[in-house]
């Protein structure tokens, strides 16, 4: 966790510096009349100080944060699966308004079901199409949720 803490503290530090710089250009105003960037700037300062503290804590010999084990939380992670899920989500968001709810959802579910845990194709197709139609009926027809219609009109 120590190395991870170092990385994260650096991340927060650079983020807070960027925020402070941007906040100044927004205008800090005076104490009498705080400007748009006021709270951003001071939160940024607080964040910067905290990130330095985290970094310094990693240097102490007996340091490290309480209540954590020594295992690497990133060990044992199947990155491909995580990436697949994220990609599926992003692509779903992109095609949703183009292909419409039903078709996009069928593709989305089919891809997800197959990539999280491999199954027989028949099952995947049945479940994706079935669920897609069911949720369409539930949200669009019953709850009038106005799901996106694509170029095919549904």
């Amino acid at each position, binding site marked *: 966790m120590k190395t*991870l803490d170092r990385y*994260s503290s650096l991340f*927060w530090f650079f*983020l807070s510096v960027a*925020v402070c710089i*941007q906040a100044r250009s*927004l205008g800090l105003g005076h*104490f*009498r*009349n*705080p400007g*748009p*960037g*006021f*709270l*951003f700037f001071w*939160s*940024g300062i607080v*964040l910067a100080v*905290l990130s330095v503290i*985290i970094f310094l*804590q990693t240097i102490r010999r007996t340091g490290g*944060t*309480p*209540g*954590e084990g020594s295992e690497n*939380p*990133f060990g*044992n*992670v*199947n*990155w491909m*699966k*995580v990436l*697949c*899920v*994220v990609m599926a*989500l*992003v692509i*779903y*968001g*992109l095609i*949703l*308004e183009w292909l419409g709810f039903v078709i996009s959802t069928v593709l*989305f*579910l089919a891809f*997800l*079901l197959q990539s*999280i*845990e491999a*199954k027989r194709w028949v099952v995947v197709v049945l*479940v994706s199409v079935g*669920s897609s139609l069911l*949720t369409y009926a539930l*949200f669009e027809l019953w*709850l009038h*949720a*106005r*799901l*996106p219609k694509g170029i095919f009109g549904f």
Partner: protein
Amino acid sequence: MDTLQSLYYGFSVAIQPANLFYCFMGAVMGTFVGVLPGLGPVAAMALLLPATFQLSPVSAMIMLAGICYGAMYGGSTTSIMLNIPGEASSVVTCLDGYMMARKGRGGPALGISAFGSFIAGTFSIIGLVFLAPTLARFALKFGPPEYFSIMVMGMTVVTYLARTSMVKALVMAAFGVMVGIIGMDPIAAKPRFTLGVAEFYDGIGLAPVIMGLFGISEVLENAGVVIKREVFSGKITGLFPTREDWKRSAGPMIRGTLLGFFMGILPGVGNIIPTFLSYSFEKRLSKHPERFGTGEIEGVAAPEACNNAAVGGTFVPLMSMGLPANAMMAMLLGALMIYGVQPGPLLIRNSPDLFWGVIASMYIGNIMLLVLNLPLIPLWVQVLKIPYSYLFSFILLFVCIGAYSLNNNVTDIFVAIGFGVLGYFLKKFGYEAAPFVLAFVLGPLLETALRRSLILSNGSFLIFLQRPLSLCFLVVVIAVIILPIILKKRLGTGLEREE
């Protein structure tokens, strides 16, 4: 008595057939989502929030409150049957609850948990009824400096009670404030940090953020790691606890309820810490502390009662002052603002149908949940046996639909995805989401309070120290920050050893 009359009015609102239906729907949906591993009450409320948009604010709040309680009941079910806590405050229930299930006593565990939650919920509602109006009158004396200080106090207390590093929790709070105030500046009408996205002019939506942080990140977490899930597949017989069980649980339930309610009222405490404390407390009071962790019913009765009482307690500052005590209440506050209701001390006065109606329906909801949950438990257990890949795919689908239907905008889906990925990494690097959510919701309120205070005082920061209430709150803030350094330990961290 005035209160009784108002309560009567509240019941008349709550038992309207439509509201009864919404209460019921909320409770069922909440329980269902609460049962799903990984999604807690906060995510449940975020997911189901769009379903409430068609309703009037009163009905919507009734449904949301039902979802809140329902999700907590559902979370207990997964803790006992699966050893997977539905949310942080159910962690303790896993300790003895799951062991009871393994010993074939899953039924009584679930039963005691349901009854305990009901009793605690009822008590805390009574407490809420009497405390909230009084507190609201008191809070009318609050000016911007008091609000600023109490909000800072709430956020600091949350970080003090963080289960991991306090510094990291403070980082989350600071970051939360920053993200929370993204959007148009209320005074200068200038867009700030909107990254060129027009949809962010009004700020980043709360619901997609929560759906991402709690829902999507949980799925990502589980997608990456293969977990061997042991559903307790034994037949659940005898949901009713025996007389012996009742005798042993009575004391813990009462103690848990009192502890939960009174701690839950304090801004920033929430319902996680009281639950842990309740378990430790019972263990210390027990004649056989070594049996805790092997399936002692006291270890289920107390935390479950405490949990629900604490939720009731957290309603008090929300309803009386418009101040959320934890992420769950922050969600409700966000919802209230979306419905156009102005939270704050005047809520009770201006929207009595909302306040009293919600209270009455919480009581009705508790009864419904008690009646619902016991017979439906076999159904919920079946739900849990659905393979992860299906469960998670549907969770993701509902998150996307939910996010989209907030504003009929795909941007919200991407916000959810973005916060989902962020939440995933935050968890891995050891940061907690709860302080972030609280700060995110409080951020804009904090900024307004700060600016108004400084304008009032003509730029002097002394105003926060000159007003007695504000000074009190700030003293607590300083104490909370300095105490851990002096004592070299904190309330939250010691409890890690209980696991």
